């Protein structure tokens, strides 16, 4: 009987992808930050999930509600929107193609883009793939276009394709000379999908085959659909529409939006699989060491501080560095970080929108800063 139970445990554990997670209920850092997560949901965040991984093992914690109306508690196994953290995955796909010799990072993007796409861009022949990866291209931001924002809010079911996003910046001038400075633009990563598509035929399948599968990520999904997410629970999303501290359920718009976004967004996953991705990447399971070094070649921000590599962000907490990426959407927010000094990975996801202001954010940001400080020692 015991053998049968063990067998079932192993089979289902592997099937559900939890075999890599060895939760430590006495994790010292987890116990230290646990009250911070509780405070988040007591101060205006519907729900929050945290995963930590360091020398003491895994700590997983979820607080608050995945859905307020149904009083559904947040759980560690629920899926969260990665939002812009998707860019790190997209960058890895491009860098895999680079390692395979299928593209060169300094090649002009016109070499890979269809003429009808290149023709929509200003000075496309002066922009390289590397400039897209590290946001130094000067290409304008598509989601600053009021037509895009109003279409998203009124007609969220609009089936945007990659080229449709580029149409929002058609004919617009570059905002600075290519390569001259860093300015984060989602458009860069939409263009990278078109480049990857031109080489692989389908960048989504390429990502699944070359990133999700090698790392054993069984609960990570890109270009989501109800069919793909069958059997999973994706957390509901909330938005403070009028910046008055009142949240409404924005799940439909959030999900439709993420369904159609490519390259700059579009992945949902669990907290632990987000960490397994970053850990796999930084431990060399996806890219060669030399390529990883390219990824960690930072361009500076306006203040002269290192800000971004190739799909990887850089920041610091009181001088303690971290790598990773953050993500924000109309109904969600998250941060995936690695703190090299403490050799600690952290992923936190919340289901309140972070791209427009809410007075609720003030306290949430203070708590987020506390969490970050705790990560550094």
């Amino acid at each position: 009987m015991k053998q049968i139970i063990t067998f079932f445990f192993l089979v289902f554990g592997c099937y559900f992808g939890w075999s890599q997670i060895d939760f430590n209920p006495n994790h010292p850092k987890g116990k230290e930050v646990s009250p911070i997560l509780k405070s988040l949901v007591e101060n205006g965040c519907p729900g929050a999930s945290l995963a930590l991984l360091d020398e003491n093992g895994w700590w997983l914690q979820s607080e608050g509600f995945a859905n307020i109306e149904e009083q559904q508690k947040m759980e560690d196994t629920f899926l969260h929107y990665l939002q812009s953290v998707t860019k790190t995955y997209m960058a890895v796909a491009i860098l895999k193609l680079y390692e395979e010799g299928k593209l060169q990072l300094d090649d002009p993007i016109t070499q890979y883009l269809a003429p009808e796409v290149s023709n929509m861009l200003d000075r496309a022949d002066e922009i390289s793939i590397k400039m897209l990866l590290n946001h130094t291209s000067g290409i304008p931001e598509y989601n600053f276009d009021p037509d895009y924002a109003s279409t998203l809010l009124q007609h969220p079911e609009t089936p945007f394709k990659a080229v449709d996003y580029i149409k929002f910046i058609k004919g617009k001038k570059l905002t600075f000379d290519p390569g001259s400075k860093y300015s984060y633009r989602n458009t860069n990563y939409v263009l990278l999908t078109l480049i990857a598509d031109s080489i692989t035929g389908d960048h989504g399948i390429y990502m699944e085959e070359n990133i999700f599968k090698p790392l054993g990520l069984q609960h990570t999904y890109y270009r989501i659909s109800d069919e793909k997410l069958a059997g999973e629970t994706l957390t509901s999303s909330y938005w403070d529409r009028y910046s008055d501290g009142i949240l409404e359920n924005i799940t439909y718009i959030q999900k439709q939006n993420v369904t159609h976004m490519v390259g700059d967004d579009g992945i949902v996953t669990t907290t632990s699989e987000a960490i397994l991705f970053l850990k796999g990447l930084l431990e060399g399971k996806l890219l060669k060491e030399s390529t990883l070094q390219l990824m960690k070649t930072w361009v500076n921000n306006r203040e002269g501080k290192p800000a971004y590599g190739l799909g990887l962000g850089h920041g610091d907490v009181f001088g303690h560095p971290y790598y990773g990426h953050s993500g924000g959407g109309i109904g969600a927010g998250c941060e995936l970080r690695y703190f090299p000094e403490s050799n600690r990975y952290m992923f936190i996801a919340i289901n309140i929108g972070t791209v427009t202001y809410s007075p609720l954010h003030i306290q949430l940001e203070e708590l987020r800063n506390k969490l970050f400080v705790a990560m550094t020692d």
Partner: protein
Amino acid sequence: MALFLCATVMQSIWSQADEGNHRNFPLIISIEFHSLSLPFKNKRPLFKNVGIGLGTEVSYNGNRNWVQQFKMTWYGNKTVGGGLLLHTQAVWRPDIVGDAFSEVKLGIGYLIAKRPKEGYQPTKNGWENVGKKGKGMLVVPIGIGLGYDTYDEGIYVSPFANYQFLLATNYNESMPLVPFTLMEFGSRVHF
């Protein structure tokens, strides 16, 4: 002071209105279709989010070509939330042919916008349902249109079609200006 100014302006309008033969204070009835979109950028289907408009107008000069409209519009919109719009617009109506005219409008209004779904507010005892309570915001309406009107007192209706663009202010802190459009089809009913 504001009331005095308003009364003076209205008295001036009415005294001028007596000079021509425009039939003042008709009942304006319209069916409206609302959208959160830039002008002429709304995606199909165009005839969604139905509303009803009621209003009246008074001429500045006694003729139909220069009037002030006062209108109240209620609309539903399941995606972005319905609302009640109160607005007044100065309307210039250059003639096209015969009794057909075009319209150009500009004014000011106040929108009481609701939420599309029930809102939740954090309290010490958890999340409190506050219903679809929304927000009031100033709007600047701009419109164009076509219509037909005759001075013949035997005809009691004068139909029109308008395309109204509304710029709502202070929607939220990150989106201070939000565009709405209303397609309006209706008639003035003269008594």
